Each structure stands twice: as C-alpha cells, then as structure tokens.
C-alpha cells in the first residue's frame, strides 16, 4: 500500500485516495474548434510510461482535494506531490 503525502493533510495511506489518471492531459478549451485527433488524444489516448509519471489522485476520504503525484510506475517510488494549482518545475 502506497504512502502518499497529501500536500494539504500530510502522509496518508493509499486507501484514503482514489486514482485519477495522467495529470499532464489538458482539456481543450470550451467552445474551441477541435479536430478529431486532438479530441481523441484528450479522451482516449494515453502513454503508459515505465518510470516517472505525473498523475492525479483525489484525497477522497480526506480533504477531497485533487492532487498531483509524481510516481515511478515500476518501483512505486513517489518523488513529489503537488496541489492542484501548483506550478510544476
């Protein structure tokens, strides 16, 4: 079970969180003309990297904030966690 540092609450067990997928995906802006390929990439197409991955988690049974977690998909090492609106260098 992972130990995730919620940037709002501190270290918590994985069972308080739910996984939310790739955090680097950006939703196309509303009312913008979007070609099929761009929309498909947003809705369906994901890379599945081995190694570092920036992903979304929601602290569901805690503060209910969506957070970003930089995690190694192979070793489960967590390098850093960020608030939803935090700039990532």
């Amino acid at each position: 079970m992972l130990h995730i540092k919620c940037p709002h609450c501190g270290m918590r067990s994985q069972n308080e969180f739910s996984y939310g997928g790739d955090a680097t995906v950006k939703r196309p802006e509303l009312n913008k003309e979007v070609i099929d390929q761009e929309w498909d990439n947003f809705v369906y197409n994901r890379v599945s990297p081995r190694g570092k991955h920036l992903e979304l988690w929601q602290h569901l049974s805690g503060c209910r904030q969506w957070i970003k977690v930089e995690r190694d998909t192979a070793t489960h090492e967590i390098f850093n966690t960020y608030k939803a609106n935090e700039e990532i260098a």
Partner: protein
Amino acid sequence: MTQSYRIETGGLINRNKKISFKFNGTSYFGYEGDTLASALLANGVHLVGRSFKYHRPRGFFGAGVDEPYAVVQLYRNGETEPNIKATEQELFEGLEASSVNCWPSVNFDIGAINNFLKIFLPAGFYYKTFMWPKSFWYKIYEPFIRKAAGLGVASTKHDKERYEHKYEYCDLLIAGSGPSGLASAYSAAKNGAKVILAEDKPRYGGSLLTSDVNIGNQSGKDWADGIISELKEMPNVTVKNRSQVFGYYDHNMLVMSEKVSDHLPKTKKYHPNKRLWYIRAKEVLISSGSIERPIVFGNNDTPGVMLSSAAKEYLKVYGVLVGKKPLVFTNNDSGYESAIEFKKHGVEPIVLDSRSNPQSEIIDEAKNLGINIKNSYVVVAAQGYKKVKSADVATISEDKKTLGKIENINCDCICVSGFWTPTIHLASQSGNKTKFNEKIDAFVPGVSKQNETTLGAANGVFTLEETLKTSFEKGKELSKKITDKDNEISIPNVVEKKYSKHDKFWCVPLPKGKTYKRFLDFQNDVAVSDVEIALREGYRSIEHVKRYTTLGMATDQGKTSNLNGLQLVSEIENKVVPSVGHTTFRPPYTPISIGAIVGREVGKHSKPTRKSPIHNWHEEHNAVFVDAGVWLRPRYYKRGNETLFEASKREAKNVRTNVGVCDVTTLGKIDIKGPDAAEFLNRVYTNAWLKLPVGKARYGVMLREDGIVMDDGTTTRISENHYHMTTTTAQAANVLSHLEYYLQLVWPELNVNVVSTTEQWAGAAIAGPKSRDLLQKLFPKTDVSKEGLPFMGYVEGELFGVKARIFRISFSGELAYEVNVESDNGRFMWEKIIELGEEFQIQPYGTEALSTLRIEMGHVAGSELDGRTIPYDNALEGLLSKKKDFIGKRSLQREAFVAEDRQRIVGVIPLDKKTSIPEGSHLVKDASAPLPNKKLGHISASCWSVEHDNPFSLAILKDGKNMIGEKLFVMSPLKNKVIPVEIVSSHYVDPKGERVRS
C-alpha cells in the same frame, strides 16, 4: 498410549499439564507447550500423511514454518481448517486432526499405486497426458485429479470465527526474536524508539532456545528471557509472539498475521481468531534467521529422515527423541550439535560426515563424548517404507563422484544437515536484489531497496558474537536517527564454539544400477530426475523449471528445496548458481488464512449499510428491504400473504389512482454555491442553465467526456447563487468527485463550492392525482395550487413547525411533489404525511412500485444509463444545447454516435400480453436462426404495467426509431424463454406528459 519417546526431564514444556488430543481417530496425550508434531513424535507417531503425487508415506521433516510434509486437517470447536502445519500447531485440550492426501487411510492408501507407476508420472506428466481428447477433461481428468490432489478440504460452512485488522505505525519493526532481533530491539528501545518486535513462534529467542551458548554469563535462553521481560515493561515497545510478518509491501508497509486464538480450544469471547496488522515502519530490521537445508540422497523422503536442527529442537524444546538409534548425516558442524544432544540423553548416535578430516571445537567435544564419527561417509539411501529401518551408507571420494562399498547401518532416524539457508524472503519482497554468497552457498540480501536492514543469520552471519555486536549497533544507529537519543549499551560477553568450514556438497550420487528417487522438493514429490527431464526438454529459466516440475511450489514454497534445486540446475547447465538465479519471493511468506485477509469485511460488514431516518417506520410497517448501493430501501410493504408482485402492483396502482408516498432520502444531494454556480452547471449539464429563475427546478443530464451519459437528476435554484442538485442514488459519490475534478483542476477560475448534503435532508415523494390535496393539508399556510406551485416549481414551507423544501418534480409521471426536511425531522414528516394522507387512501410504496411507475412512463434510470448509452439512445437528445459547449459535447460527433441506425430506447410488449419478459434478454429478428443469432438489442427493464394490466419492458434497440410496430422475438437462454413481442413507444402511459403538469 504412552509417550515412549519423551525423555524424563528437560524441555520447555509444562509437564504438570497433560493435554489429550486425537489424531486420525486415535487418542494420545502430550503436554502444554507441545506442538501437534512434538506430541505425536513423543508418542512414536512418524507416519502423518501421504505425498502429493506418489502418495508415499510422509513423516515430519522440520519443526516449524519450513515443514513440507506434516500438513493436516484440523478440527477445532466444531470448525475445520485445512493446510495446518503440525509443526506449528500448538496442542490444546481436545484438539483433533487428521491426515490429508490419503484414501482410505494413511496406513493403506490406494493412491500409493502411483508410487509403483512412477515411471509414468514424471515432470510435466499432467501437461502432456491430459491434453486430449478435449472432451475427457471435464468428465474424467479433472474430477480424478481433484480427488487425488489437494492438501485438505476447505469447510463449506460459514466461518463463525472473527478476524480483525489493525493499522499501526512504528519507528522500528523487527521481524524475528532471535539473537539479532532481541539485540537490535533492545538498543532501539533504550533510545526511546517506538518498536514492534514480532516472533512467529510461541516462544521468544529463536536459535537461543536450542543453541549451547553463553551470553553475559547466562545461558542463551536465560539472556533472551531477561531481554524479553525488560522489553515488555517498556511503554514504547510492543512484543508479539505467534505473529508472522509475512509480507513486505510498498513504502515500508508490512503485514503481520497474529494468531490470537489458534492455540486455544475455543476463541475467547470478544477475541478474534487472528489479527492482521498493517504496519507502516520507518525502519525494518529483518532478523528472520536461517533454515537448515537437507542433503539429497536416495529415498530421502522416508519418514524418519528429518533436518538435524529439527531433531535438536524436538529434544531441547519439547523433550522428545525423534529416534533411539539416530544416524546424523552432515556436511558441516551443525550435525554434531544434534549428535551431542542425543548422546547427553543416553542415546548413541552415529555421525556420517561427508568431509574427510574436519577439525573444530565441537567435533572435539563429540569425540570426547565417545560419539561414533565416520568421516568421508554419506547416506546413499534410506531403507524402510513407512519408517526408516536402516541406511545404506558408503564412503565417498574426495571429488564426491565415487561411492565406496555399500554398507547397511541399523537406525530409526536420519538427521540430515546440509548447512544453512538465510531466510531472505522479506528483504527480497521489499525489492532488494539478493546476491550469492560463495562462503555459505546461499543467497543473502544485497543493497537495501526500502528502509530494510537484514541482520544475523538472515544476512549470512552465523556467529553469535558478530550477530549480537552488529545488531546492538544497528538498533542503536537507526533509532538514533529517529529519536536523536544515544544511549550507551554495553555489549555482553559471548561464549560460543568455533565452527569449521562446511563441505560444498549437497547431493549423493546414485550407486551403479540403482534408481532410488532422490527428492529435492518433498511437498511436491519433485525428484532429481524430474529436474533433469525438464532441462532435457529445453526448460532453462529457473522460473520455467519451477512451474514445469512444481519445484518450490505449494504451501511451503520450497523453503527446504529451492537451493538444492538451484544447485542441480547449475550443475547440469554448467553454470554457477548466481547466474541461474532464484525464483521470485512473493508474499505471503507462509500461508495466511483467507479469513484473516478478509477481516471483518464479511456479509453485512463488507460495506457500510446506510439507512434513511425513516427506516424504523418502514420496519414497523412490514417493509421488505432491498440493497440499493450501500442503502437499504423498502422494496415493498407486505400486507398479509402478498407476494412481491402483488404488493408492488397494489402500491403502483394506488399511486395512479389515489396518492402514494415513497422514501427518496437516498437520492444524492449536492449543495452548490457561488457566483459562478450557474455557469458551472451550464458546463456540466447538456442543457441550458443560465436563465433558470430562482424558485425553479430543471431536469438535467450530465455526460462524461466520452459522450456517455453519466447521470441525470433535477437541480433547483434555491437563491441567486445557491443550487440544490440531486443525483441518482448509485452515482452520488461519483458525481461529487466529477464536479470537484472540474472545479479544482479544469476550471479553477470558477468561484463555486460543492458539498454533499445527501444525509442532511430526508425526502418524501408524494405522487398521485390526490397529491396536491394532501400537500395543501400538510402546508395550509403555503400556496401549493397549480398556479402557486407549477410543474418544476419550488417553494419553502412549514410543516407543522418544521422547515421544509417543496419541489414539484415527478419520477412516476403523476402529479407529484418531493418534500425535504432536515434529517432529524424525517420520521415526523413521514408520519404526518401518512396521518393526513389517510383520507386520500395514501399508501407507502417501495422501489419495486417506483420502478413500475417509471418504466411504464418511459423514464430512464440506472438500467438505461448503464455507462454505454449516449443521450440519443435514451431519447434525451432534446436536452442537448446547440448554443453552448458542455462536458462531452465534442464526443457526440463521433461517427458511431450519429449513425442513422443508432440504438434507441423503445417499449416492448409480449404479443400474448401475458408472458413476463426477463430483464437482460436479447431481441432478435428470427428466433429459429442458427447461432450465433444476431442481437438487435436488449431488455433493460421490465414491469407489469398497472395502467394497461399487461407486461411492459424497456429495451435499447438498434435503429429503435424506425422499429416501432415491428414484431421481434425476445430470447433468454438463461431462462430458456422465447417470447414473440411487439416494439412500441417507450412512453406507454401519458405520452404527452399531461399528468405531471395537471
């Protein structure tokens, strides 16, 4: 029976307390502190089972967790449990156990014929033989294999025992209470660290219980006892016996199974049977010791052949002789320890040492005691069938390839020692890449992956002095990092015997012309010849060899066999062991009860049960409940002998003719506030929300980004910047997360807050032509007339002093209202509705009637919004705004979603107007077409229409728009039904929606 193999005095058992038990129906007795194994051995019972494949007789091989043979079926307090190691099961009064894997009895086992057919049962036999003909598999092969295989029978009864889970955090978790565990725990505890010390056995001390050493002028055991009692007194230390740390998971999470009650005849009141500890540790010290490994020789599975360390443990801990004419076969000094113990108790052992001229303190001691020692000697084969009767022995050449003349020595047990294998499982599970240590011919942990440190024998260190020194220091160093304290600990003086080098020898060659089975894996009957076959057939990877031969599989996971298997593979392949590598160690280290893993999450405890504040009223009025997500909802209110069908029809009919009331507390409710709330709703829902006036509700549909309908419900504008959203019962939690996702991540610029208020409000739906008359009585001060509260209107009112929200919304298609009051007033509201509704013939209705009403109206619900349908499929395309963007809108342009013959909701009526249509059935054009018959759609919901008094269903049907009036067939292979049907509009009642607006 007398305990003829129990010595007069000695051991750590309590001889003042006799315990009677039964094995295979025969009564025996042992003492408090015995294991089932030690008590049986004390009674001279060596035959305890039959082997897995050849059904050869099986005895005891070890004295603990490594035991491959003595797996029994246990009976305790009216329950039975398979897969119990007799070497681990503590004796309790009235214990009953029986052998597994034998039929009709352990003494006469029909399956033993496999032993004589063994030429036909080599590695891969099952893979090769039972492949064809295919039709034989289910009828013949599988039942045969199932009957013949298995290590016991799982109970089919509900388990009455309780299992608990516990979460714990600590600075240091120490797995194993041997010398390294005790020393590191002690110095860490002295530094004030929060320490958990776990021991899988009932007794603390590990090897100190059986070794002849002296620590600080005390015996090893006395020193261990002293440390343990001191640790137990310290508030920062938790000391647990009967507790196996069996898994090392991510981020230093370890799981430990504590046997709370297995050693008792019956679990104490309020106690669990087992407790599973989830421990998050800052540092983990692995002091799991080592396991002796056997030397491979002919018929080395005969009962009476066992590990030399086990023989010593039975003698020193339990006061039990495993034999009276022991033969000790060793390649190192450990075998001498057992021989000396035998000798001290008046038994004459013979030692066969594969080494030509070993010299050490302990060998000198054995010589001085007059023990018969034969150097350069090996056991070629054990003789005897159900018990060792003698041993064929021979001298062996220096290169270990040539045997001398075979002699026969009388003996009743063969104690074998092939040196020690560190128990590296936990370190390996943590991700540590283990390395091969040539000095000890075994793998030891390499560089730590997580915060784990392996100490003592588990790390390949076999001298006590070094073990204690490094462990004291490590405990001190790691705790200092955490607590910043640095207590001086004086390391005690150690007296131990120096050992000489072991012999790199693990397998006795076959003498010419002999075909003895030489077993590597005792639990799975894997012999040297099986591994040879696997390699001949091209299996190279050790993982493949393992799976093909089953070497190292099953409940002991090869604790005594893995290394010898690797030695064999590397020898045949002409590789060194490290390049062959070992198979992956995965948790659990030893079998863990499913009950312990499940914990309390069984039956009704598997998820929370949510009840509405009106629940007790429902119960008092004969409600029959149904699980709706995590909620319990009344399905119907039973009157007399009514069936579900009759009751729901009555309740639904009463709604259509008079008035009914339904508890809708379970609907998800989300409070939405903020200046941008309208804009937010406008993006979330498919229809327009910017112009909804205060005091009005609107029905909305929300999509996922892929265009699939996520949920529907009504949202009401309570005040300028305050909305009340309702969701379906099932999707309430998901919708809240969905909204939070968009507010926090996608559109953080929107000033909106959302919070779940599902449990803050109790809701009652009042539906039927007389509902307005009733509402007027409930709210005499409020104008609820057609004009005062029109369809989709909202007002606040006062229900006999209680603040209420009144929504004019309808799920049943009738004139209907929903009244919400704060939860605490829920029952008050409900009783007032029932009381005042009496004159209008009010009846409460449950979910079954609710479904009937919505189905015949053609209102979609969860069975249509099933995660596979878009708005068009549910005839909701009218709610798709063309003027604005919303979540999922772009996806609706997908080719499949705009196809001419897109699936769409329709109504279905059986032509005979009698036959009920099973939900989930398929719709087909031609019932007699050959299979696979093309499916045109499926039945999503079925009811008995109370309006038309015949069955009616909803279906999602391909090209549904153009299918109205078509005759099709409903097929349900599950119910074996074929029903001719007609496709009609999904709006079977009041298609123009006049009633809701009346």
